[in-house]
């Protein structure tokens, strides 16, 4: 809370108060948690902070010349500065292969999760399409409810876009142990419908299977339509500078929808860390503070009782060091030659928190230290700083 004295209006298309999305694919579907348990802040807080809520309202158009937005209920609201945090929308399976069947779901919103709660029940057959985090988490939740779960992944392995083969192997084994049928390198040819529901899936290896429910976890598209129609620069996300400002100086963007400068590139992240930290920078910029967004990315995923925590971004790695961890855990350390990039810490919060600190401090432990199992994590700063290793870049 920065003590802003301006009038703030928060407009959101969904009817619920802003909420935590991560539990939707984790404990929400299986637990009896009410939606209030997911809310970021209680209603009174918006009132006491004088934030006017316009929920269940979609912004139809953004009129930059007159600095106003038009809502789907016809109202037009003026702004001095505007923040676009429109997030992303889940990709759907094409209707041409049966994607519009009533039992084919995506998992992005509370409404999606509520619908899945009704569909998920012991013994039912679930087909999960996509072996990314959302697909894997959904498979885990469904298994814990006693469903029969098959997960197909079109690429040669699960987690292809987001993690190393080592991390993927760990999670493949975990799901196999828990009774999920995982089929990698297999895509969907089409769904056969009966009275509007998908009842059978034809896979591209020629096999077929009977199904009761389908969940597609095949990625998201940044919600850039509003920005695009208003003529803002959009390239895989709404393009912003380090302060979160778009190509229009009174308009900012943050979170899943925004593409920001990072180490000489423009990137987009889909994570809570990014949504929270970038919103902070945007709020400060809007109030005239000089700030720059220099994130230390982090992420997590919960599957069964296993926790994965990721610090850093692994893009551009060419080798990994793998370390064993307590609680049947593992940590996978990503390097570009000797430059430390990221860690996947499985049941190993120590590795996660250590890596996060190192990345924030710009400290490079070097590959050799991590690859040597006899060197404790807590001893690595000294290890790297001993004369033997003075050639290492720190």
């Amino acid at each position, binding site marked *: 809370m920065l003590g802003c004295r301006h009038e703030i209006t928060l407009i959101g298309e969904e009817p619920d108060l802003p909420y935590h999305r*991560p539990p939707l694919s984790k404990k929400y579907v299986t637990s009896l948690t009410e939606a*209030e348990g997911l809310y970021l802040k*209680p209603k009174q807080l918006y009132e006491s902070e004088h934030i006017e809520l316009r929920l269940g309202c979609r912004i139809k158009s953004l009129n930059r010349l007159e600095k106003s937005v038009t809502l789907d209920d016809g109202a037009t609201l003026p702004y001095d500065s505007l923040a676009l945090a429109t997030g992303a929308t889940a990709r759907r399976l094409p209707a041409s292969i049966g994607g519009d069947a009533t039992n084919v779901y995506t998992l992005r919103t509370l409404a999606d999760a509520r619908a899945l709660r009704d569909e998920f029940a012991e013994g039912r057959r679930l087909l999960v399409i996509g072996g990314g985090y959302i697909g894997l988490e959904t498979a885990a939740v469904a298994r814990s409810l006693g469903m029969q779960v098959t997960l197909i992944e079109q690429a040669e392995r699960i987690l292809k876009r987001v993690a190393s083969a080592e991390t993927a192997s760990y999670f493949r084994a975990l799901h196999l142990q828990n009774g999920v049928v995982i089929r990698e390198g297999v895509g969907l040819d089409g769904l056969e419908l009966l009275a509007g529901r998908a009842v059978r899936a034809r896979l591209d290896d020629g096999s077929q299977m009977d199904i009761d429910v389908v969940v597609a976890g095949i990625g998201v598209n940044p919600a850039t339509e509003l920005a695009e129609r208003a003529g803002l620069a959009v390239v895989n996300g709404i393009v912003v500078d380090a302060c979160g400002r778009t190509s229009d100086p009174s308009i900012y963007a943050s979170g899943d929808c925004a593409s920001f400068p990072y180490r000489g590139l423009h990137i987009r992240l889909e994570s*809570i860390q990014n949504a929270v930290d970038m919103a902070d920078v945007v709020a400060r910029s809007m109030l005239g503070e000089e700030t720059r967004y220099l994130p230390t990315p982090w992420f*997590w995923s919960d599957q069964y009782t296993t*926790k994965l925590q990721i610090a850093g971004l692994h893009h551009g790695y060419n080798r990994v060091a793998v370390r064993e961890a307590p609680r049947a855990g593992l940590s996978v350390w990503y390097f570009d030659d000797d430059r430390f990039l990221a860690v996947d810490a499985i049941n190993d919060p120590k590795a996660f*928190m*250590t890596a996060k600190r190192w990345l924030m401090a710009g400290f490079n432990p070097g590959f050799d230290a991590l690859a040597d199992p006899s060197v404790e994590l807590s001893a690595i700063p000294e290890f790297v700083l001993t004369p033997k290793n003075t050639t290492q870049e720190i």
Partner: protein
Amino acid sequence: MPTIIFIEPDGTEKQVGARVGQTVMEAAVQNGVKGIDADCGGSCSCATCHGYVDEAWQEKLEPADSMELDMLDFAYQRSEGSRLTCQIVVGEEMDGLMIRLPVSQA
């Protein structure tokens, strides 16, 4: 409904009626208590729901599990009664539980 007493970072005392079965973090957030971020929404992944359990209560609560302890090792200004409040499930017997919140969560 057990009452939990939170001491906000600036010293303000807030008494909150908590529901049995929810977590201490949820009780705080849903009642607008200041000083808890809870970025990960209670998944023991972020350590931004850190609080100090009053001495009188430290022994009475179920001890932290090893994952929570490892996260706490890196929490900002860890001390004796440090806990991640998302890992404490409210029970009937917790009426009067007092938790101080740190000045910063990071």
